[in-house]
């Protein structure tokens, strides 16, 4: 369902970014990069929030005509950004409902990001992976791929 999934380092350079279809890869790179603006905004806003509102999931970063961009940031300040085709409304609707209900964890976005986070954590724990390097991991690739095709 996602058309682009990106992992972005603390320092805001991409650790991993994969999009489908590949032809407008560039567009997604721009989109993800721009979305960091909102990520930063949300994080700084988050800092002030109360403990139980300090949620890793940032929700919808910003919508464009054709895509919705969602964000998530780990405690290690690594950002996950997911671009979803707007025509895919499943995510959006649930989003609206549960966000207004103030419960993130029921949103499909949240779950997808959790999967991403877990998988990323495994990458971090691979002794042969050098933190900060671009991610080249079969396991991670597969997981991302599964998210790209699977429709939820």
């Amino acid at each position, binding site marked *: 369902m996602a058309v682009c999934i990106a992992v972005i380092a603390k320092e805001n350079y991409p650790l991993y970014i994969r999009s489908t279809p590949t032809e407008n890869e560039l567009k997604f790179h721009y989109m993800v990069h721009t979305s960091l603006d909102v990520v930063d905004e949300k994080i700084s806003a988050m*800092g002030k929030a109360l403990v*139980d509102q*300090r949620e890793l999931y940032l929700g919808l970063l910003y919508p464009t005509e054709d895509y919705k961009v969602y964000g998530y*940031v780990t*405690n*290690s300040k690594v950002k996950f950004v997911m671009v979803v085709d707007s025509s895919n409304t499943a995510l959006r609707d649930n989003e609206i409902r549960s966000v207004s209900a103030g419960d993130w964890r029921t949103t499909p976005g949240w779950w997808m990001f959790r999967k991403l986070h877990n998988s990323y*954590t495994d990458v*971090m*724990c691979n002794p042969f992976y050098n933190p900060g390097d671009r991610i080249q991991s079969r396991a991670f690739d597969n997981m991302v791929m599964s998210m790209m095709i699977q429709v939820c």
Partner: protein
Amino acid sequence: MADEALFLLLHNEIVSGVYKSAEQGEVENGRCITKLENMGFRVGQGLIERFTKDTARFKDELDIMKFICKDFWTTVFKKQIDNLRTNHQGIYVLQDNKFRLLTQMSAGKQYLEHASKYLAFTCGLIRGGLSNLGIKSIVTAEVSSMPACKFQVMIQKL
């Protein structure tokens, strides 16, 4: 817990391994410590990533230090840091009165000269953990009577 024994042995073996390899090549004092510290650093990065996976975002530096002293320390060494002190200028002192990696050696001053070998890895753990949480720091350690020891964290202001 069972496999703690295994970890302790592994750690000892790593320490002696590093020092042995140093004996062959001409290596000065620092190299081994640094090597151990670096290994710890990498492990710390990995661990913190896991440990903070399900925790809420941290409020500030102090919040993070508390996490290191409580949750992190507990999961790694089965106990909390006994005392955390800070000057609020980016220097923190973590005191562990019964540091797990020193308890194997007899208490007091007998093996004091060897103690630092057994702290290097942990210094790395802390530094790695912090750096992965976005805090650049220098971690040093100090023992005057085992098995108590102090870790000093100097945080790089950005």
